[in-house]
């Protein structure tokens, strides 16, 4: 992150603190440094959901979304930003990216500020296709629900949970290999795997309850 990458954690915290206390120069630099982080996370999230955009001006929606995320990051004297704890392993940019992705997910899912939620979604497509082959329907429905599940998972997972999910289920590492690569015990990894699948089960139930469907 420009201007902050080379600085120590203490320097970054001091910088953020002074910016939040009204140092205009540092605030400008902080915004310039954070903008690309928030921008790329928001852009990725919009690309994943672009089937919902239905011809809207993506760029305008993106810029609005980035602004909403900034409002959340800096709200109440920058409480969210002040929660960065370098001892937890994430760089400041990584932490901001994590917060941004979660906020974007919330904003787009809950519809509080999502212009796309009023548009027809996959649900309507499913109705339209209802006369088609059941196997096709199931595949479309399954994919749609997996998309929703993945968005909720991104929103809900902690940084560490994301790391373990990625190792175990994206990179398909064995528990032993994931434990070796993270310096964690196998027992801890098994516990994490159990927590992750439990969370998935809860999210599936949430979606099922929200939408009256089975995943």
């Amino acid at each position, binding site marked *: 992150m420009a201007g902050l990458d080379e600085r120590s954690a203490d320097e970054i915290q001091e910088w953020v603190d002074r910016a939040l206390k009204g140092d205009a120069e540092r605030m400008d630099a902080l915004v310039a440094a954070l903008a690309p982080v928030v921008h790329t996370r928001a852009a990725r999230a919009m690309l994943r959901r672009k089937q919902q955009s239905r011809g809207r001006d993506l760029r305008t929606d993106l810029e609005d979304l*980035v602004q909403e995320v900034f409002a959340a990051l800096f709200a109440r004297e920058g409480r969210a930003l002040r929660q960065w704890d370098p001892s937890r392993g994430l760089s400041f940019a990584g932490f901001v990216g994590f917060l941004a992705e979660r906020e974007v997910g919330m904003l787009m899912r809950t519809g509080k500020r999502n212009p796309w939620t009023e548009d027809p979604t996959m649900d309507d497509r499913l109705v339209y296709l209802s006369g088609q082959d059941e196997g096709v329907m199931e595949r479309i429905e399954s994919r749609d629900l997996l998309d929703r599940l993945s968005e909720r998972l991104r929103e809900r997972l902690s940084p560490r949970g994301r790391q373990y999910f990625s190792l175990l289920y994206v990179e398909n590492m064995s528990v032993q290999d994931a434990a070796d690569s993270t310096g964690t015990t196998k027992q801890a990894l098994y516990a994490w795997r159990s927590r992750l699948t439990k969370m998935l089960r809860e999210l599936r139930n949430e979606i099922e309850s929200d939408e009256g469907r089975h995943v």
Partner: protein
Amino acid sequence: MSDDDVAYQLGELMTEQEQQIDPRLERLALGELSDDEMSALLRDAEQDEKLAEAVSLFRPLGADVQAKLTTTARTSSAKVRRLPWVGAGVGVVLAAAAAVLLFSTAGVEAIPQYTFKAEAGDAIWRSEAKPKSRTLREDSEMSIVSQPARIASGKIDGALWVVTADRAVRSPVAPEVSVNGAVRWLGVARELSAGQTGPVKFVAFVGRANAFPEPDERGGVTTGNGWQSFELSVEIQPLGAAP
């Protein structure tokens, strides 16, 4: 489909989503593409509608947007002042006035009936329904708002307690009190809970400060002389430990 099957399918989906994003796009957003790389990307985008759409999303934010972000950051981070706020919904208050219950007390000025509403993430709890326990992350933004059925007269105060299995402590988050007598607490869950994680019960009191009992002195009732209360049980997960 088993939980593990779903997890592996999600893993595949995330890999697929990642592979669909051209690796040059992130560098485009960061302004790190050379002129040659930029020309090549734009040429490719001319032949590929999806890539063109992605390029429109990832091209760097303009100076006008940066200026708006700076304004947003300054405005949002400005120190919160305890000014009168108008969240008490006076119209609703007046409409409901006929149904107001007054709790007359000996030596304590009566207060109007209050309703309570708590929010954290997409979870909402209301005093009208028995609140269900939910799991929150310690960094979840949370609010507890109590509104009077009519404008409250006299000084109204609030007290938020955090009750765990072995103790009850006052939350360090001070309530904000509107001119209408509405009371609210805002903060992240960890602040509201005084740093407590795990199973936590919030007990919010509104009314006359000198009338507030301690949580375990209420004998199971939610209203008393000059006070009303609301309970909410949650499980607060530490950020590092939550999956």
